[in-house]
């Protein structure tokens, strides 16, 4: 009887240890999966930001066209209005880089055209884990003087 009890206890101990090992394995697997999903999420967000950067200059809210023909530049007069864009938690701005203007002057109906920074969209997160900043050179068109100037379109993405 004692031997049988001992055998039973051994079996239960083995099952207990196997269960613990399976538990640890599952926990590790779960952690790896979680990291993989996090990585996918970051990659997805990065690709979305790149596409946004690529397509935004041609959107109707920003693009300049001459008699209906797209000119691959941004109409500065359109930037002076508030727009209905919604891109989540992002900061999107355009900064004129050439000709250079000293300091940072935000463009609005009063300061235009003697300014150098246009805020296209701004919705910040007060607390965030990561901030991704990407930018692309763009051309700014000034309708009153019929001039083109160089600028940088910058997208800051909070997560």
């Amino acid at each position, binding site marked *: 009887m004692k031997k*049988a009890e001992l*055998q*039973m206890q051994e*079996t239960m101990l083995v*099952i207990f240890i*196997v269960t613990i090992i*399976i538990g640890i394995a599952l926990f590790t697997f779960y952690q790896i999966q979680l990291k993989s999903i996090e990585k*996918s999420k970051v990659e*997805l967000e990065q*690709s*979305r930001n790149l*596409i946004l950067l*690529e*397509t935004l200059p*041609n*959107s*109707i*809210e920003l*693009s300049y*066209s*001459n*008699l*209906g*023909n*797209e000119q*691959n530049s941004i*109409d500065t*007069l*359109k930037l*002076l*209005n508030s*727009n*209905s864009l919604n891109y989540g938690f992002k900061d999107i701005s355009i900064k004129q880089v050439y000709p250079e203007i000293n300091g940072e002057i935000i463009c609005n*109906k009063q300061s235009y055209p003697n300014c150098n920074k246009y805020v296209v969209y701004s919705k910040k997160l007060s607390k965030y884990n990561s901030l991704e900043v990407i930018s692309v050179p763009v051309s700014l068109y000034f*309708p*009153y003087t*019929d001039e083109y100037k160089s600028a940088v379109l910058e997208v800051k993405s909070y997560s």
Partner: protein
Amino acid sequence: MKSQSELNWVFILITGTVILIFFVSFAFKYKSLQEEKLSLEILNNLDNTLTSLKSSPYNTFDKINLPIEIQVTCNEIKLNNNNFKTNNLLFSKETLKNKMLIYYKPFKAPFKISDFYLITDVNTRYNLVYDESTKEYVKELIDDLPQDLKQKFTLSFKTPLLRHLENNNFKNVEVKELKDNKIKINNFQIPLNKDLAYAAIFSDNFECNFNKIKQEINKAVNVYQDKVNVVRQENCNYYSFISYLDQLRNLDFNAVINIETLNQDLAKKSCPTLY
């Protein structure tokens, strides 16, 4: 002693079965999770590919091989029962398989309003059924399509072809009653505009898409009305645009020619143009 040994075997059998069931169910759940992840990745990549076409100011035609059947609705692309919400205006048949044909064209009236994606697959054929009023118009519509899409169309006067064979791969599209700058496509009346006509021909659910188009027109009109309110230049009149823009907002496409004329007048006077 013998009964104890039997009890041990029963115990091991039950425990083994429980562990086996656990692992098998885990394997199945993991498989379905991976499939779901893969589907969403494919749909996301597809949507990104479509969105990238927006960076082109020109009409663009492209083909994409589809390893698996996908469904396109007004707001979503579906694969294996997984939905992916899209903001792109996709005018497509509901089920696409084998090879997807995409014709991207900016929708202009007269300025750019939105981006249209006319989508079909390699198997589908269309028969445009016209009447006296639309005879020339449907010919023009087909002539303006890329060669690969042109081949998909046949024409018939008043009578739908092979009605009994109409299915997912063969569609009769009725284009009729062109009058007062309006046209009926599959009994849905739309303003006379080629881009809208294409959208109605290619779309299986045009009613829903048309509501999205109306929103896009509204958005574009707001952008240009805002610009009218900002632009100031001596001897240049921008306020005449306002009433025509309102007309356009109400889907009166007669305003298009007036907006075009006003814009050209501004260019002649060396004023900054509206668009």
